[in-house]
């Protein structure tokens, strides 16, 4: 064991080195590391296999769904719009580590006439009749849940253990300041905990880069780095919290009990309680209610604009005027197409208005989760991890927005066909496979890391604040309350 030098940084470094070598000798910690690393490796390998299989299935599904659209045969364009098309949300390779909402939202959206698409058309969680509890097996969940537990317990055992064994008294008798000793000890423990984190980091980076297309590797590497940084901050915050608890409690038993209570409260209880609160305070309307409201607005209008019937009357008059004819039957174009176009445009306006209210509900729920994250940093870390992996709700919403724009575009194309293929008030006609081919497939690009970071700015600040506040707070607490 090296002698303690007189300068403060040197002292801190020496204490940290000594802590690392002492911890390495602890069989319990080695066992815990082995379990954590084995669990992480298993989860990452299993996650990778699932990710690759899901990507293959998704690609095959999208191709086949597109073929079905192209070869659906003769059909009225509006019925073709109801047959609709399926689009699938592309995934970043980091999803192998953090699948996020994939199992709960599904990956596909059914785009059909009239209605904004909603996730969970193919609900994966519906099939999970036997749900397995939080973070069943993802790499990120294991790193956060088990890594967090390890950090808390390691911190909680640190000072209290030295106090009970009399080591603390001996060290302080050598003239080392409490804060210096504590800083060195915490840094040493952080160095130890950096080992599983570094291994996880190598695995995540390797997996993400291998799974990403060449042109996206820079973006994925940046996302992976931020993901790892957020998890490192979580582990650091919990370690510092553990050390703080250890400094102010009287015994190892009390420190450990407090650490376990924090873990149960922050990792097991808080996420569910927060989700429950979010739904209580800002309830999401059911799809049936949402559609009832949009149907009412559609019928009755808003902002001094009349409902659909009044608009239809005006449309008929303006169309007759435009074509200079007396009756709809005399029109050289299909009025049913014009009517459908107007109906869809009005429906889109109504929907945009209602969806903006729904988006506010999502924002309020997010705000509630972030208030809870201020108490339970796991929530913030998980949010950032999902955001960087592209599996959080904001990424799903981004895709949903693109899909909705695409749906409206292809709806317009179908209505154009009706307008130009029939005349007067006729409705029945058939489009052909050649018509369906004019609808190009959706081209979607996942937003880049800067967008993702902007979306995660609040949880990132919360996590950063936690890491800094707990680190300095523990030093401050220790210098005031720590007694040998």
């Amino acid at each position, binding site marked *: 064991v090296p002698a303690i030098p007189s300068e403060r940084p040197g002292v801190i470094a020496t204490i940290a080195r000594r802590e690392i070598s002492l911890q390495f000798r602890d069989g319990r910690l080695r066992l815990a590391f082995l379990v954590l690393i084995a669990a992480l490796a298993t989860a990452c390998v299993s996650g990778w296999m699932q990710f690759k299989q899901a990507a293959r299935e998704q690609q095959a*599904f999208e191709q086949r769904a597109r073929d079905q659209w192209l070869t659906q045969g003769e059909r009225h364009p509006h019925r073709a719009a109801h047959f609709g098309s399926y689009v699938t949300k592309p995934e970043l390779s980091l999803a192998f580590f953090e699948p996020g909402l994939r199992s*709960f939202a599904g990956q596909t959206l059914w785009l059909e006439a009239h209605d904004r698409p909603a*996730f969970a058309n193919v609900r994966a969680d519906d099939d999970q009749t*036997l749900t397995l509890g939080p973070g069943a097996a993802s790499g990120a969940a294991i790193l956060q849940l088990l890594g967090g537990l390890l950090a808390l317990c390691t911190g909680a055992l640190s000072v209290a253990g030295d106090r009970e064994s009399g080591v603390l008294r001996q060290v302080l008798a050598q003239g080392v300041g409490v804060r210096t000793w504590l800083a060195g000890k915490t840094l040493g423990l952080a160095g130890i905990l950096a080992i599983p984190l570094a291994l996880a980091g190598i695995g995540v980076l390797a997996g993400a880069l291998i799974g990403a297309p060449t042109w996206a590797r820079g973006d994925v590497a940046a996302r992976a780095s931020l993901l790892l940084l957020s998890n490192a901050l979580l582990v650091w915050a919990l370690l510092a919290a553990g050390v703080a608890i250890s400094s102010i409690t009287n015994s190892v*038993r009390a420190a450990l009990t407090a650490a376990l209570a924090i873990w149960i409260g922050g990792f097991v209880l808080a996420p569910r309680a927060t*989700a429950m609160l979010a739904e209580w305070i800002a309830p999401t309307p*059911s799809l049936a209610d949402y559609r009832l409201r949009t149907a009412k607005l559609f019928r009755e209008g808003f902002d001094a604009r009349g409902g659909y019937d009044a608009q239809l009357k005006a449309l008929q008059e303006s169309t007759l005027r435009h074509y200079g004819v007396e009756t709809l039957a005399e029109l050289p174009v299909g009025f049913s197409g014009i009517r459908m176009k107007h109906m869809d445009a009005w429906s889109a306006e109504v929907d945009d208005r209602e969806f903006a209210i729904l988006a506010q509900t999502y924002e309020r729920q997010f705000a509630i989760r972030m208030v809870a994250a201020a108490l339970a940093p796991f929530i913030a870390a998980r949010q950032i991890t999902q955001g960087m992996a592209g599996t959080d709700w904001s990424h799903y919403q981004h895709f949903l927005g693109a899909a909705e724009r695409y749906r409206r575009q292809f709806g317009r194309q179908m209505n154009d066909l009706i307008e130009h293929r029939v005349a007067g008030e006729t*409705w029945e006609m058939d489009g052909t496979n050649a018509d369906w081919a004019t609808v190009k497939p959706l081209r979607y690009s996942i937003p880049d890391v800067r967008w993702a970071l902007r979306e995660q700015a609040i949880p990132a600040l919360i996590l950063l604040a936690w890491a800094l506040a707990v680190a300095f707070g523990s030093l401050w607490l220790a210098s005031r309350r720590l007694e040998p």
Partner: protein
Amino acid sequence: MKLRLKNEWRLFIRAPASVLLLGVLAILTMVAAGNGTQRLLQERITARQALAEDRESFAAKRKALEDLEAGRAQEGQVGSPRKAHQAILSARRPLVPNPAELPVLSSGTRPTPELLAVSILTRHVDQQPRLDDPSNRLDGPFDLVFVVTWLLPLFALVLGCDVISGDRERGSATLLASQGTSLRRIMAKRLLVRFWSLFAVVATGSLVVVLISERTNLGNALPALALWMTGLAVYLGFWLALAALVNVHARSAASAALALLGIWIAVAVASPALSGSVVQALAPPPDRLQGVLALRDIDADLNRRRREVTNEYYSRSPQNRPIAAGDEFEHYFVTELYPRHLAFDRAYAPIAARMDEARTRQARLMRVAGVFSPTLSFRLLTEDLAGLAPERRVTFFEAVDSYQDRWRDHFDHKLASMRPLTLSDYDSKPDFHPVGERALSRWGRIALILATLLLPGFAAIGAALRRSRRLAPFGTP
């Protein structure tokens, strides 16, 4: 013995930490039970409203037809009660499954819909997307399944980790052993006090919500609750037996707590996750994407062959040929869409059956895997009694299919031939009567789950009794 137990109870209840923990558990139980009750009441209100609307809608149609026949009203262009394609084709009848015994225990996603709207057309193309942010579903609901299977063991472990190891740590174990009562007995009594305290909190909370939510169905609910409480007792006994086993060896409360936490992670987290992975590999869940593709293939194929499908239908049922040509809409909905939907259901039925079979197979395997984790077993028991078993879904959908067949048979002739409906068509329309699962398969399944819970439960209790004979004041390495 009684005096000693009373003393232990006094010691236990005077400790602020014990009271705090029991209080927190009571609050969590009530919140979870409240969530389950709220969800259940909401479901019942929705079902009642839907059934009432359905009754009113058909009563209004019948009255309108009566008025038409009596000449008190004139038939309009739309909404005629006489035209089956207007009155029946789009009418969706709400069907409610047989209630589960203890639905209040869970507020999670249920594989069986608690209300299904079925019309004369196919039900397989109905989509039920959700608008909620799935982040709120990520950790699962805050219900009794969560509190009892996940949190209760943690409370048991925190309360049970220092029953003897705490005395060793304080140095009072030797003194305790010299008082004339063996350490084994003292530990047993302390654990018994903890068992009854925890059991009483959860059982009382559950009993209260069941009495409130199932007051009209107590005949079914109370035996199921008794069964569930038996499972609860065994489950709690399992965890306290583990606490006893650890206390035999641990020299300090801290090391006992760490060991028990490790066991909790292994039994409650890792083992179910591993079992789930193995079961998914052996019996994969139904592939929904393939299901969607199959559904669209059938739809597209029937659309391409729509004239052929119509001809097939009318050549099979020549008595149903339309008595009038009808306009382009009537022609489409009656002679094209309706036969196509019948053909669709015939083609899709084997795929739907395969998906249900996959779900059931997976659930069966999972029940067997429960033997490796009492948490999984107890969860399955709770979810089954709450109505989440896929077998309940299969039973309900079989009844739905059978009802839909009768509904179609009843209106088929009038709809396809466009003949006018009469009052007797309305009066003799078939109604849905839910059927429950066969008692033998239902309770046989529950018995299997209980057996997989009892096996490790009694094994742990037996091991604790055996090993506790070695209980010594200083612990054993």
